């Protein structure tokens, strides 16, 4: 836009990249090796998820490539290990390393989708609740209160349980992903709504909003153009931490056997399957997916923790 102006200003502000590199947030990022490490790890997981078919040495879903003769092989450094399968194989002869890459892909996908679902629902309701106020606000917040009395995992379980009995079995398999995303997503909206409502209550009384009203601008535009950008900071922090929680919730549901269908296993499914072999000494089937899950969640949590501190000027 700046280039098309009639009279170019004599000195202009630096571009967004320069401003970003000069910002306090970037500065604090560079000063924290742990944060950089977790950012790199998260990025690796994302890349792994995006390009899983290219990276994984085997396709665990391709029945032709699975040989039951390879079943339950330990990792390569142990006696009886096979160089082809770094982390060993599971009871059906699938390569653990490949199933973990594909499992992380499923976990990340479900986690992301449900966080986005929560954000859209929570931020929307929070904005409306805070700006409109009155009875609508009271109604939304009471619903939020009641929902808060049940942990997310219970709500997700209930929704899954209901879906199970309402949908025919064949369809359930097909829709399992959407049911899961809906269940995890709807169990997380409250926190966004409460935070956004609180910020909106503060922002709507600020004078820049009143200035917009004096100009004559309507509530929808004020909400979207003025208030929304000013309440998104905390949302970003919650979303990061929520992504970690959503991944854990998905893993837990899958572990309990009500999550993703076993044909497309997530990390949680892998741990569940492996759990049955724990007592017979085949620990790798459950421990390696477990380590992958913890690393992924830990990296995201570390990022979220840092982001929260970096965005809170009082802590500096």
């Amino acid at each position, binding site marked *: 836009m700046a280039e098309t102006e009639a009279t170019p200003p004599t000195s202009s502000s630096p571009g967004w990249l320069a401003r970003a590199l000069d910002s306090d947030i970037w500065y604090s990022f560079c000063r924290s090796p742990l944060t950089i490490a977790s950012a790199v790890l998260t990025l690796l997981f994302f890349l792994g998820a995006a390009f899983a078919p290219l990276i994984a040495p085997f396709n665990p879903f391709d029945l032709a490539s699975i040989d039951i003769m390879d079943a339950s092989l330990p990792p390569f450094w142990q006696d009886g290990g096979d160089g082809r399968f770094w982390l060993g194989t599971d009871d059906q002869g699938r390569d653990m390393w490949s199933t973990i890459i594909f499992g992380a892909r499923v976990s990340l996908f479900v986690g992301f989708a449900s966080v986005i679902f929560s954000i859209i629902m929570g931020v929307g309701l929070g904005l409306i609740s805070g700006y409109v106020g009155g009875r609508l606000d009271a109604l939304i917040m009471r619903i939020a*209160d*009641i929902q*808060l*009395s*049940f*942990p997310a*995992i*219970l709500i997700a*379980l*209930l929704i*899954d*349980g*209901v879906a*199970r*009995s*309402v949908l025919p079995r064949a369809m359930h398999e097909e829709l399992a992903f959407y049911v899961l995303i809906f269940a995890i997503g709807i169990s997380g909206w409250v926190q966004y709504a409460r935070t956004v409502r609180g910020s909106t209550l503060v922002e709507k009384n600020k004078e820049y909003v009143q200035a917009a009203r004096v100009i004559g601008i309507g509530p929808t535009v004020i909400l979207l153009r003025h208030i929304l950008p000013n309440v998104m900071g905390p949302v970003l922090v919650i979303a990061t931490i929520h992504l*970690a929680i959503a991944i*854990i919730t998905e*893993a*837990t549901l899958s*572990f*309990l*056997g*009500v999550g993703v269908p076993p044909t497309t296993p997530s990390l*949680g499914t892998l*741990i569940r399957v492996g*759990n049955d072999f*724990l*007592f017979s000494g085949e*620990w790798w089937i*459950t*421990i390696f997916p*477990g380590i992958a*899950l*913890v690393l992924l*969640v*830990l990296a995201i*949590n*570390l990022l979220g*923790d840092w982001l929260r501190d970096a965005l809170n000027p*009082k*802590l500096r």
Partner: protein
Amino acid sequence: MITFILQRILQSILVMLTVALIAFGLFRYVGDPINNMVGQDTTIEERVELRERLGLNDAFLVQFGRFAANAAKGEFGYSYQHRRPVSDLIAERLPATLELSLISAILALVVGIPMGVYTAIRRNGALSHTFMTLSLIGISLPTFLIGILLILFFGVILRWLPTFGRGDVVEIGWWTTGFLTSSGLKSLIMPAITLALFQMTLIMRLVRAEMLEVLRTDFVKFGRARGLPDRYVHFVTALKNTLVPVITITGLQLGSIIAFAIITESVFQWPGMGLLFIQAIGEVDIPVMAAYLVLIAFFFVVINLIVDVLYYVVDPRLRVDRADSGGH
């Protein structure tokens, strides 16, 4: 004070009614209750008769009223799966879950609060950083994975502790307790730690955040400027002010321990309500699901009431404002 508590009880009843409505909706409209109760060989006439007898043809409000009244008495009908009254099933399982939750809650509070206070006061100490890092790992470890790791280590490799069940229990009236036998206590250790760990880290981080917030306030600064020693500022001024917000959220957290027990019970095959519920979901045993839902809401409401009263005791602003406005 009495108005305040009455008001809260009224709100609690509203919450219970809402939850009962959801539970009723589940029971009545998810699947056909008749189909779930009777076998394949029941005739149409028998079904119609049963439907009439159970009052499933009555008006919605009448049905809901009956459901709520029965729920208040603790009656939720028959389990589809076990063919026994749900109330019996719950009564059998309740002690196991409550004992587990109680020990976990105490563990979480007794360890979590001091750690939170310590990390707030010694913000930049080496031990604080260690605690903070451990707490991050704590919230990054899914509960079921903690359980599995404990089982692997102490159960399978070291063989120190039992890996499933409650051990031997002693019956005291209808209540069964594992506290009085050594195998019962041993069985409790791993599940209790598993369940407590996540809450503990949450409580610690919450206390730390609130305390840091309080330590930045003007009255803390003014206290220091009057020469009050750190000990006083930290433990008299700051801690009391920290407790006000902490009580609410901690109450919520502890309430959720009972429901969180689902995962732990499932990992350790702990014979509690959570295990019953997860099996009910697998088998679409709606009456059990509905009863569990109402029961969890009830515990939550009771804990919330206690929290409100505590809040009232701690914060004088509430007391006086109420008294003033009650006057006219």
